[in-house]
């Protein structure tokens, strides 16, 4: 604590909070850098305040429309979109998990040989780098409009997500159990199935359920680029300033996400 006490006059010795960054040079250096950055960044903001002021009315209208959302006018579009989002979520999560498991085995440094390890890690890194929407644009260009493009997009991102986290979990398993099974003379498959699988299963279930949640949230925007789901309806609603329809869609999305979160919390508490 000595450094934090300002000495000098013996009478006015006061305690000061230890700073977050100990080194004075770094502390002030970073502060100056941050200020310089904000000044530089502020130049790229060209806010048209009168436009913002005009827009506030519309913003208020949008908030008001949450009080009386319009489910009826475009109900057929909305229900079809939501249904499609759910379908994309289910299929892409299932296929993604099935494909992610072998990749995760390959990306775990304690299971795979070095070459396979690097190949699998590389696949995961590339897979995770691009945002889903960008992947969806490419998939729509390749496979055409419709839910199939959304399905492929979300499958790919599910693979990256599950494989990375599952591989990390496999690397953290307890060794004695794995060695005990190996010492019974088990083959490789038996070893994976009886030594590794039981240890990572709770985590895999937890991740999968969490991923359902993420996939549903993402599938609700894929429609913006034509990859199926409720996003297209939402986009149209905003374009036409039909805030009451947009509010209805957003309320449905939030409700489904909340239900999913509740269910996933429940299941995760049971398996872990």
């Amino acid at each position, binding site marked *: 604590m000595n450094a934090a006490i300002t000495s000098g006059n013996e009478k006015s010795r006061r305690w000061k*909070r230890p700073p*977050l960054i100990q080194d004075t040079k770094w502390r002030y250096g970073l502060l100056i850098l941050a200020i310089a*950055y*904000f000044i530089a*960044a502020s130049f*790229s*903001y*060209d*806010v*048209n305040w009168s*436009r*913002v002021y005009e*827009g*506030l009315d*519309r*913003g208020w209208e*949008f908030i008001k429309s949450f009080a009386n959302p319009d489910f009826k006018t475009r109900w057929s579009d909305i229900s079809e979109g939501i*249904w*499609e989002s*759910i*379908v*994309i979520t*289910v*299929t892409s999560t*299932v296929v993604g998990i099935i494909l992610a498991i072998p990749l995760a085995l390959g990306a775990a440094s304690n299971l795979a040989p070095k070459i396979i390890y690097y190949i699998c890690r590389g696949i995961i890194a590339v897979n995770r*780098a*691009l*945002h889903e*929407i*960008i992947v969806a*644009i*490419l998939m729509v*260009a*390749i*496979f*055409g409009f*419709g*839910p*199939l493009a959304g*399905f492929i997009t979300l499958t790919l991102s599910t693979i990256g997500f599950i494989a990375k986290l599952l591989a990390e979990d496999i690397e953290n398993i307890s060794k004695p159990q794995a060695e005990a099974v190996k010492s019974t003379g088990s083959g490789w498959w038996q070893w994976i199935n009886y030594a590794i699988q039981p240890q990572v299963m709770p985590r895999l279930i937890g991740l999968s359920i969490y991923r359902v949640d993420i996939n549903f*949230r*993402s599938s*609700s*925007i894929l429609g*913006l*680029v034509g990859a*199926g789901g409720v*996003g297209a309806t*939402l*986009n149209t609603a*905003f*374009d036409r*300033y039909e805030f009451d329809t*947009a509010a209805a869609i*957003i309320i449905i*999305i*939030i409700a489904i*996400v*909340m239900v999913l*979160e509740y269910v996933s919390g429940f299941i995760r508490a049971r398996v872990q």
Partner: protein
Amino acid sequence: MPVTTKGDLKVWQRRDRAKQFKIWFAWLIGVAIFMFCWEIISDKTTWFFVFDAPRIAADIGGRAWPPRWSYLSELWKPMWDTINIATLGTLLAIIMGVPVAFLAATNTTPSKRFLRPLALLIIVSTRSINSLVWALLLVSIIGPGIFAGTLAIAIRSIGFVAKLLYEAIEETDINQIEAIQATGASKLQVIAYGIVPQIMPAFAGLSVFRWDINIRESTILGLVGAGGIGLYLSSSLNILAWPQVAVILIMILVAVVISEWVSSKVRLAII
């Protein structure tokens, strides 16, 4: 442990018959649901296009290569905008999210009846709506531009910051807080000297983590008119200028990799 006898041989099984049947039945239902969903997707797909996909992919790849590197000079400005959207958006999210976190944590909230559910509602509703949807909304309210993008990123991140922070607040060590209380500190002093030092590492870690995510998210906001490099991506896509698209994608990849590296370095330094 269920054991069946086959002749005079005892065979060990993991589960008894009823339980095994239940599990098989659950699998059957799961597979049926999956096939049903797949059927819906399959009905809506023009399979002719799908079978043609490898050719189209090769075609697009052929057009995109070599990337038009000269386009890079036009991209520095939008990339700078994208970084600003992410950074200032994260900063705004932190400014708005921290009070929400203190309202939501059971040990710091002023009222469990009224303010805590309100804070949780803010967390859930901002988190469950994608930043692209927020951007759509804000563009239609305050007009296109990076201001709308920044606000979209900020609002989307409030829930994330507040959720992780309030969990950290709830996990703080009660002994240290009681020690501060015992000195006669006021409520605000308890927060400043008892709680804040304990949650500081978690707070710094999650801010940098969110910044990293936001860099990725802000690259696409331009698709709905909220500024940044996505604007150039969507205009290049609209005119089918694949060599330009390739340059943009490479630039986004590089930016994401750099931001991930920075964030992991900073988090290691903190924790």
